[in-house]
């Protein structure tokens, strides 16, 4: 029964405490759950309940998200590449040798970078509202990007 509870843990990656939710038996197929903005691993709370009897589920919070540490931008580079490096080290440190990747929102840019670099880790992709194509950028997102671009030019 114990294996069917959800654990709330953290590991230290280069001085940053990375929080993660973990559930299910380690002998079962693994699913790495990567979420996005403006949320955290809490996105997966219901899905974990549904799947924890059949899979080993791992849902980390990126630095600056959820319950992970949020070092200042002077101490940690908040780029998608650097967050991917942190998640790659996280995966290696907790001993995941292969997993099904659930990529939601920012989980796309992080997960697809990791998959391109370490394809041997990826058993399958489960993609939900994440993007990898120019034609996939919706009006809502384009407006936000334009706003940021203008904001940058003004400052």
């Amino acid at each position: 029964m114990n294996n069917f509870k959800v654990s709330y843990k953290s590991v230290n990656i280069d001085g940053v405490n990375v929080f993660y939710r973990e559930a299910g038996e380690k002998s079962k197929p693994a699913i790495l759950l990567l979420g996005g903005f403006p949320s955290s691993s809490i996105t997966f709370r219901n899905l974990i309940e549904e799947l924890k009897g059949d899979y080993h589920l791992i849902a980390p919070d990126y630095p600056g998200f959820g319950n992970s540490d949020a070092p200042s931008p002077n101490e940690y580079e908040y780029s998608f590449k650097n967050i991917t490096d942190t998640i790659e080290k996280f995966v290696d440190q907790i001993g995941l040798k292969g997993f099904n990747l659930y990529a939601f929102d920012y989980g796309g840019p992080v997960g697809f970078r990791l998959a391109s670099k370490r394809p041997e880790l990826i058993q399958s992709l489960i993609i939900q509202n994440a993007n990898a194509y120019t034609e996939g950028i919706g009006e809502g997102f384009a407006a936000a990007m334009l706003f940021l671009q203008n904001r940058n030019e003004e400052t």
Partner: protein
Amino acid sequence: MTLEGIKVFYFTGAENADLISPDAYLSDLQNLSKPGLVDIHLNLLHNYSSNVAEYLVWQNYFRTHQPKTLLVWGKNDPFFPEAAAKAFLTDLPDAELHLYNTSHFALEEYHEAIANNIKSFLN
């Protein structure tokens, strides 16, 4: 980031607003209200253009490795709409696609159905 701003992601395109639990968005508000978090998230959002520059790399990964793929999608998402889901089929023509009548946060309304999709897909 205001509560109203966060709720846009959860409610725009949702099928039934009564099915959106406040648990997630209130937790998001609490997390984003910590000192320095707005700056961190603007930094990261500004870095999003680095992803657009990587699209061809990822598309090449999809095309050459052909990972088994399941697409589950809130089709009313204004950020990454239905067209974003269908674009993956260009390089992953065997991918399985399920569209749901909901928002960006599709798991809020459709976690049971998506869990069932995952179980069938991984079996």
